[in-house]
């Protein structure tokens, strides 16, 4: 029990630090890929503390309930990962977090936020089924939804679940809001919808959004690391490799439309997932 408590506290403190640093690396590497110097690695933290010191401006009271809900669900799903609990519940909690984010945008009156929220809903529609298939795949492989069960296996999940791994890479691009999927809110879609879902957040509340993004990034990379848990450092390397790959893709692609994204993730992601699970059931005969 004490062990778990310590894990929880460490995860709560360390995850945003890692997430922030990764965002700093993101900005630095992106800058270098574009031939610029880029900001210092710890720039996201500077931004974060600067935002905390700004004025509180409430656009709508409801908005802040949703933003705290977003934060809570995200943190809880991260805890599910570090405490090695149920992956299926984790996926649902992540879905709840996304819905809170959307409702937060809908609670304001800005048309840009509404457009962003509509697109965010489409994104949830695009990635949630694939994550569910991932949970199903884990179950088909191990006979259990528990993450701790994954750690007990000697054979990495990647060998049997590699089609789902590819599908999850798509999800990572969507969740990291990188081109070609930087649709609902992005740093560069300012000409279409300003900043979409987060248009109406400012100051400390925007800082909260950043905090959630850091947790989210660590959570997603953690899910990718699950594909190779023995030894875990290989999984972490794979996750970092995936992260770098996203940065490369971001810089060689234009933003595409929301409809295109749903089509792609359903056709490629779902087909890969279904084939993967069907194959597992056929070969292993687990029911």
């Amino acid at each position, binding site marked *: 029990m004490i062990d778990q408590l310590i894990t929880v506290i460490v995860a709560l403190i360390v995850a945003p630090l890692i997430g922030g640093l990764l965002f700093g690396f993101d900005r630095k*590497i992106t*800058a*270098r*890929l*574009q*031939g*610029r*110097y*880029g900001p210092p690695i710890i720039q996201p933290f500077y931004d974060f503390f600067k935002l905390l010191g700004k004025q509180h401006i409430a656009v709508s009271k409801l908005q802040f309930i949703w933003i705290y809900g977003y934060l809570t669900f995200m943190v809880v799903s991260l805890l599910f990962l570090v405490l090695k609990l149920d992956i299926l519940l984790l996926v649902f909690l992540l879905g709840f977090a996304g819905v809170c984010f959307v409702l937060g945008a809908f609670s304001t009156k800005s048309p840009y936020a509404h457009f962003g929220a509509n697109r965010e809903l489409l994104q949830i529609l695009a990635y949630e089924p694939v994550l569910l298939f991932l949970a199903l795949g884990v179950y088909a492989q191990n006979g259990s939804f528990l993450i701790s069960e994954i750690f007990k296996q000697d054979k990495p999940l990647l060998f049997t679940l590699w089609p789902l791994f590819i599908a999850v890479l798509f999800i990572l691009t969507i969740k990291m809001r990188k081109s070609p999927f930087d649709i609902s809110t992005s740093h560069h879609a300012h000409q279409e919808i300003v900043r979409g879902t987060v248009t109406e957040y400012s100051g400390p509340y925007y800082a909260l959004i950043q905090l959630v993004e850091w947790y989210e990034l660590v959570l997603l990379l953690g899910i990718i690391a699950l594909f190779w848990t023995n030894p875990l450092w290989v999984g972490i390397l794979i996750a970092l490799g995936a992260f770098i790959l996203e940065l*490369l*893709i971001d*810089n*060689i*692609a234009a933003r595409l439309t929301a409809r295109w994204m749903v089509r792609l993730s359903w056709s490629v992601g779902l087909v890969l997932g279904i084939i993967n699970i069907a194959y597992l059931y056929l070969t292993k005969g687990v029911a």
Partner: protein
Amino acid sequence: MPWMLPTILKNFFGGPATRLYPAEVREPFEHARGQVSFNEDKCTLCGTCVRRCPAEALSQDKEKNELVFYPARCIICEVCADICPRKAIDLIYKWRLPFYTKPVEVYKPRGKESGKAEKEAAATREPALNN
């Protein structure tokens, strides 16, 4: 999608193309127009530059013997330097730093004392171009 890949990889390994600006400044080109400088010793307050300045950044006061320059209005077109009959105006290739309040520079021309006869000739002479 992969068509952009060679370019960004070249950027990544070739180092940044930008400059850390305030710390590292590029040498200006030889005849780049930076800011206007006046030579009080040569100026005779003939008023040609005051009349010709398209931005009305110059004014003169014959009684007080003053040439007043408003740098915030100056558009650095080099017209004054081109037409000055005594070559008392020059452009130096260094940029003026940004300012918070609009400065006013007052010059006390001393060119009249140095050559009265010369000044007579210069003031009546037409510059080479009608601009």
